[in-house]
Structure formats: structure tokens, C-alpha cells
């Protein structure tokens, strides 16, 4: 693939004192894609993001954004990015409009240009009618929308979103997914972190699973799932005595990748269910195995996460702050 590279991270490490938050990670983000960093609490997602937006200097390794080094050319990098922090970085006493006006001054926009852009953004995130109320009167979702509007104000080439939907209700989450897709459609590159599997699955073009400061695997959601070795057909038999016979009959068949005996039946890894299911049923019929139950599972991102980290994402407790 020779797509344009927007971000290039090479052997990046970051330690806080003796605590290693990010250890030797390398990855690339292509121009125009939605790239996700998926990982549990304390995995090092925000640390990675903060390095990319020039707020942290790497302990070792380098990162470039549109060819600009995040340390040497930090000021130039800041001109091409927008950032939406993980915390609601809102000043309770300022109104929504004042937030955007402040940022417009910090990006040195001329007055009329700023006013035009602020108007557009308020419309985009549907905050027009609340623009002149202090932010302390906003709901969580409204604050998040304002956050995103702030990130978009500089009209960045690359937008960094740190856990954009953390703690939002389903509707607001879907709304934010829509924004992100729309930004992509406009040609923006988006880098986001999340610890929601469904968000990573549905929103990201490619993602890196990060755990304990290391990248465990990287690819598109589909690639990652396929990489596990196909879909799984679980068969439960009426008589467990017939399991070995069916197992040996299925092994080596073209549509079937692997067969594993379980307590009550078989777990069969298949390439495509259309070809495999008839073969499985035909063999069961031929051997006179009564099938009690048959279930077909696509591997989910859950399974990918478990396969690469050895546990479920929900089971990971936040590592203690020190």
C-alpha cells in the first residue's frame, strides 16, 4: 500500500520517572483515515496522543506529523492539528462562543474569518441556541460537543480525539460517530483513542490494540478478526460418544480450517460459513449424529482483544496512579 503517510511514530517510549507508560511503539497513520488506539485504562493511549500533539517530549524515539518532528518542529505541528482532550477541558465561566473566540485569537485568526468559522461550528455541533450561556449550565453531552467544536476551530488537517464518547449516552455517542465520519468524508485525518470495542470496530478504519504501553496488534477491524483464523461454528451433539467420529470426518475438509472437541460437541473454525455449514451438516447426517444445537459466531473485536492480551477489556482494572 502506498498511501500518503500522515503520522509516523518510530520506536517511541515515554517514562514518568521510573514508570514506563509507553514502551517502544511504532505505527503509521495514513492520510484521510480514522485511526484508533484501543486499550484499557492506563494502557498509554493518552500518553501516546500527548506526545503526538507536542505536549510531551518522548523519552526516546521520534514521531512526525505531516513530516514535521513533534519536538524540533513543535510549533509547526501545532498549526496543523486540532485536539480534543480526554477531560472536559471547559471553563465553566465562559460561554460556548467565548471558548471559540478565545481559541480563534490563539490561532491568530482575523476577526471576520473567526466570526464566520465560529458560526459554522456552532451550527455543526448544534449549540447555536446555547452559545451565549456559561458552560457551567451545559449538560455533559453539550460540553463534549463544545470540546469537539474547539478541536475543529483551527480547521486542522489532523484531529486528535482522546476518548471522544467516554461517559456519553447512546444517542450522543452515535451523533459523535456521525461527526467523525463526516470529518473523514471532508478529507480530515482523525486519530482517536477509545476503550469501547464497538466504537473501535464501527468507527475506525484501522486500529492498534495497546496494552501495558505496547502495541499488541494493528490492522483494520476486519483484518484483525480474520487474522484470528476465521469464523466459528459451534455444534452441540445429542450423544457425546459420537464426537470423535464427527471430528475425524471433518478434519481436512476444504472449507474447514480447524476442529476442536469440546464437552458437548465441536468448535469448528471455518473460512466462510456458506461453504462450511452444508459440509458439517452433511457429515453429521452421514454418520448419524443427532445435532441438538448449532451456532455460528463471527469473531468479534472482543475475541481479538482476548487473543492478543489474554483477557477481556472490561476485566482490566485501572492501574493505580503513582
Amino acid at each position, binding site marked *: 500500500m502506498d498511501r500518503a503517510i500522515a503520522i509516523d511514530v518510530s520506536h517511541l517510549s515515554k517514562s514518568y520517572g521510573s514508570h514506563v507508560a509507553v514502551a517502544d511503539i511504532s505505527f503509521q497513520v495514513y492520510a484521510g483515515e480514522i485511526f484508533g488506539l484501543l486499550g484499557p485504562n492506563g494502557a498509554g493511549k493518552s500518553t501516546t496522543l500527548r506526545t503526538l500533539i507536542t505536549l510531551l517530549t518522548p523519552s526516546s524515539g521520534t514521531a512526525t506529523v505531516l513530516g514535521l518532528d513533534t519536538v524540533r518542529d513543535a510549533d509547526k505541528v501545532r498549526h496543523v492539528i486540532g485536539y480534543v482532550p480526554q477531560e472536559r477541558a471547559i471553563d465553566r465561566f465562559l460561554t460556548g462562543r467565548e471558548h471559540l473566540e478565545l481559541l480563534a485569537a*490563539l490561532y*491568530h485568526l482575523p476577526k471576520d474569518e473567526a466570526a464566520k468559522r465560529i458560526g459554522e461550528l456552532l451550527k455543526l455541533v448544534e449549540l447555536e441556541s446555547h452559545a451565549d450561556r456559561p458552560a457551567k449550565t451545559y449538560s455533559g453531552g453539550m460540553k463534549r460537543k463544545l470540546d469537539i467544536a474547539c478541536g475543529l476551530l483551527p480547521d486542522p488537517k489532523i484531529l486528535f480525539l482522546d476518548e471522544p464518547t467516554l461517559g456519553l449516552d447512546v444517542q450522543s455517542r452515535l451523533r459523535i460517530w456521525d461527526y467523525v465520519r463526516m470529518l473523514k468524508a471532508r478529507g480530515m485525518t482523525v486519530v482517536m483513542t477509545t476503550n469501547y470495542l464497538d466504537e473501535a470496530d464501527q468507527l475506525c478504519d484501522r486500529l492498534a490494540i495497546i496494552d501495558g504501553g505496547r502495541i499488541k496488534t494493528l490492522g483494520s477491524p476486519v483484518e484483525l478478526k480474520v487474522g484470528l483464523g476465521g469464523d466459528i461454528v459451534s455444534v452441540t451433539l445429542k450423544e457425546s460418544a459420537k464426537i470423535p467420529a464427527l471430528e475425524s470426518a471433518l478434519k481436512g475438509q476444504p472449507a474447514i480450517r480447524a476442529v476442536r472437541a469440546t464437552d458437548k460437541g465441536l468448535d469448528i473454525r471455518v473460512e466462510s460459513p456458506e461453504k462450511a455449514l452444508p459440509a458439517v451438516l452433511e457429515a453429521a447426517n452421514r454418520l448419524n449424529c443427532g445435532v441438538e444445537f448449532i451456532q455460528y459466531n463471527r469473531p468479534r473485536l472482543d475475541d481479538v482483544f482476548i487473543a492478543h492480551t489474554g483477557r477481556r477489556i472490561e476485566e482490566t482494572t485501572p492501574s493505580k496512579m503513582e
Partner: protein
Amino acid sequence: MKEYWQEISALTMRWVRRLSREKFSMLFTLVQPMLFWLIFFGNLFQRAADTQVTQAPNYISFLAAGVVVMTVLNNGLAGGVDLLFDKENGFLERLMSTPIHRTSVILSRFIFVMAITSLQVLVILGVAFLFGVRPATGLLGIAAILLIGMMFGVGLTAISMAMAFSVKSHGDFFSVLGFLSLPMIFLSSALVPLAAMPGWMSFLAKFNPMTWAIDAVRPLILSGWSEALPHVGMVIVVMVIFDALCLYGGAKAFRRAMG
């Protein structure tokens, strides 16, 4: 340069807006407890304080200089609080991710704190005036008082910001603040002249930059230029050293926090 100024004025405006939105805290910031010190303490000790000791016509005119510098102290030491909150809620990170000069946020804070402090000093001098305290050195003397206040304030604000950038939690910040401010006041010539203090206290008070500031402000209010000038010259030297130390420490803490 134009851009730098655009950043600083926008950031300074933010501090002004915040203050104006917090009506209650504005009242307490501008009409500070310091005024109560002046009015209540000043009048309460009117009879108890010996004018032979204070070398002033009355206690309130003696105390005015102390209250002026205490105002500078309190404002300066609290000057970093808003940055502490900005650091904790991520707003600082948002500001620093924009292409602003790395010093803009800090500079805007200095400007704001100095402006508010000067305003308060003027209010205190005004109230003292109502109680019959006429600054002996006139308007020029008041300008000198403001200058001394700002020089002291810059160092204090730098300490406060350094703490804001270094502390782990804001509980720590406020405990250090509480721990610093009262001894600074009692181990200075704010309430009692050095000559009337127990030996060990007056010894320690000599190392307190606040003492030097008060000893220059007091003759500006009570005596006149001939008496005040040597003290003013001295305090300028002391404050240049004090500010240099504080700014150096502040810059180090800032760089560590932003690295």
C-alpha cells in the same frame, strides 16, 4: 509580535471575564479581608499600640503599609490557583496545544494578578485616607508604592505558579499556601516594628523580603521622601534578587511540567 500581543490580551481578557462572572468572589477579591484588617485591627489596637513604639501618629497609619504589602502577599501567593485548576481540568493542555508562544499563558496571569493587586492597593490607600491617613509623599509616593508592590508580587506569583505546576493535588497547594502566609506576616514588620519584636523574631524578619517592602512603603506613607528614599533604593535591590530567584525556580517548574 502582533500575534504575541493578540494571544496575551485574549488570555488576559479570559481572567477578567472569569472574575466578573464570579460576583461573590469578586466582592471578596476586591474588597478583601485585608480591608477588615485595616479597619478593625487598625482601630482595635489604636489604644493598645504605643505611638512611641510605632513612631506613627496612630496605629492605623502605621498599619496601612503592612496591610498594603499583605495584600500583595495574599494576591501573589494565590496567583497560581487558577492555573492549578486549568492544569487539573485539562484546559491548560488545550491552550498549550495551540500554536501560542509558550510564555503567553503565564504572562497573561502575571498581568492580571498585577492589575488586580494594584487596584486593591489603591482601594486600601483610599480607605486609609478616609481614616485620615494622608501619604506624605503624595501621588508620586503612591506610584512608588505600586511599583514596590508589583516587584514583590511578581516573585510571589512566580512561586505560586511554580507550586501550581509541581504539586500532585490541589490539597497540597492549599496546605503549603496556608503554611507560608501567616509566618510571612508575623515574621515581618507588618504589625509591629522590628525594634519592638523579641530578638529571635526580628532576626528572622530581616530575611523576609516582606519586611523590606514594608519598611520602604511605611516612610512613603508616614514621613516623606528624604526618609523613604534610602529604603526604596534598598528594597529595589532586594526585590530584583528575590524576583530573579523566584522566576528562575518558576521557569524550571514550568519546563518540568510541560516537558
